[in-house]
């Protein structure tokens, strides 16, 4: 039912945004790619440093390690909370909804600050523990890797909730009923029926969370205290503190390639989930 004469209105409506982004995003990105092979001199030297330079390589390794831990924890936590959000009573759903969506809309900075307020030397946790006499001096709970992980998990849980929720909503209730009718326990139904049925959602959520976690900057920079630097912070440092624009550009290009590969994987899984499971 496509109207061939409608090409001009379609162009007029879509062109402003496409042209705007072509000029402000696509072209400048090519510029960044150009920096990566021309600064400080022409060649692929910067890319060799990504694997060859021990500092850069160690930052990449640390980033992958932290992101893997964060992804596993965030998806597991999101699974627990989504399960009750989708299947709970009306009151449970309402409470969980607030827990998920209020933090989601609050800025990264405020949330990172919240972790400082909770865990720093004179913050809530240490003050109360000392007042109760459970500890003698403050425990060093922030400006380290575990606090970075906690902060990142906090940010990423809501992103895992949405794919998980749509997978859980698609589960056919009759299958669960059949399992119950045949005498399966609650745990058995969950483990042998519900979880396998929602596996496509888990895989989708895992990939989304991992992709998002790779580029994290604000949370690790504040909660890591400059010690456990991740890739994005390295880019910032190479741009503004010890300028090495070529390296910053090369890392950016590498990140885009990694993310593109993961997204390609994700879209394949999405297609599998669509053709394979349910509806």
């Amino acid at each position, binding site marked *: 039912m496509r109207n061939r004469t409608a090409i001009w209105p379609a162009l007029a409506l879509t062109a402003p945004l496409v042209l705007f982004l072509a000029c402000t995003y696509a072209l400048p990105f090519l510029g960044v790619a150009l920096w990566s092979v021309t600064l400080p001199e022409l060649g692929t030297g910067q890319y060799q440093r990504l694997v060859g330079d021990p500092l850069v390589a160690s930052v990449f390794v640390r980033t992958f390690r932290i992101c893997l831990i964060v992804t596993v924890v965030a998806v597991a936590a999101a699974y*627990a*909370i989504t399960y009750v959000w989708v299947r709970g009573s009306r009151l449970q759903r309402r409470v969980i909804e607030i827990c998920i969506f209020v*933090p989601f809309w609050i800025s990264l900075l405020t949330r990172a600050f919240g972790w400082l307020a909770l865990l720093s030397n004179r913050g809530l946790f240490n003050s109360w523990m000392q007042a109760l006499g459970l500890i003698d001096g403050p425990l060093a709970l922030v400006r380290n890797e575990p606090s970075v992980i906690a902060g990142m998990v906090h940010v990423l849980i809501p992103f895992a909730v949405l794919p998980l929720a749509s997978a859980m909503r698609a589960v056919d209730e009759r299958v669960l009923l059949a399992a119950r009718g045949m005498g399966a326990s609650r745990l058995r139904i969950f483990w042998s029926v519900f979880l396998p049925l929602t596996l496509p959602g888990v895989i989708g959520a895992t990939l989304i969370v991992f992709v998002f976690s790779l580029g994290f900057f604000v949370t690790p920079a504040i909660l890591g205290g400059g010690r456990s630097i991740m890739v994005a912070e390295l880019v910032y440092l190479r741009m503004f503190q010890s300028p090495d624009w070529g390296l910053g550009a090369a890392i950016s290009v590498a990140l885009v390639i990694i993310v593109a590969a993961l997204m390609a994987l994700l879209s394949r899984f999405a297609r599998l989930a669509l053709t394979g499971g349910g509806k």
Partner: protein
Amino acid sequence: MKIQRPGPLAVALALAVGAFLLLPLLAVVPISFTPSRMLSMPQGSLSLTHYRQLIDNPDWLSAILLSTKVGLLTSAISTALATSFALGIWMLQPRFSSLLVGFVLLPMIVPPVVSAMTLYFLLTGLSRFSQAVGFDSVIGVTMAHIVMTVPFAVVMVLVALAQVDRRIDLAARGLGATVAQRIFHVILPNIGFGVATAALLVFVLSWEEIGVTLFITSVDAITLPRLMWMGLRDNVDPAIAAISVVLIVMTTLVLLIRMAFQRRPEFEEE
């Protein structure tokens, strides 16, 4: 068919995760009333010093004003561009639709630090022609915020359009309505709520944008998050606790209002 509700173990786990999500936000509240000039729990007496600072200190005030200005501009332009684009895709289904949508969603998918580099490249380039549009300028920040928020607006408007009954548009077309008439008299009135939500979302996103803003500002265009960032890295200023409480309360109110309005079409999703 009655569904089996989650058992006590599942509920306990979910509540633990919920507490984990809310705890850092709640911890900010007592800290904001400390009389001390360092980040600490108030011991004995409470004080509003840090709230006063937000009004008395011109830095905070000008940052709030700048963020509001940038947020409003970004919201208007971003939503307009996104709505026009989404209408073009929905009404006319041009060839390569999915490719076009994929392209405009890029800033949402690409890691923010890469977008920050890209916009840094753009704005330092523009600075060579004019300081007013380049690095560390209000227009530069607005332009960057439009790039970063427009994908979210596109998604929201496309979602709103997906719920419009195509037959009403076909009927209008059959009756000889022009493209402009179909847009303004038929489609836009049907997606008003979606467009308004998109505008609100864009404002909030711009108001709290830091990842990119950090790369493209230095001393002049100091938005609120940029100012917060400066007070967060090393010696934490408790005024940040006060502004955080204000932001948390505002966000929660907006969300509650939105929830109240959204309750009506609930029967559709359940």
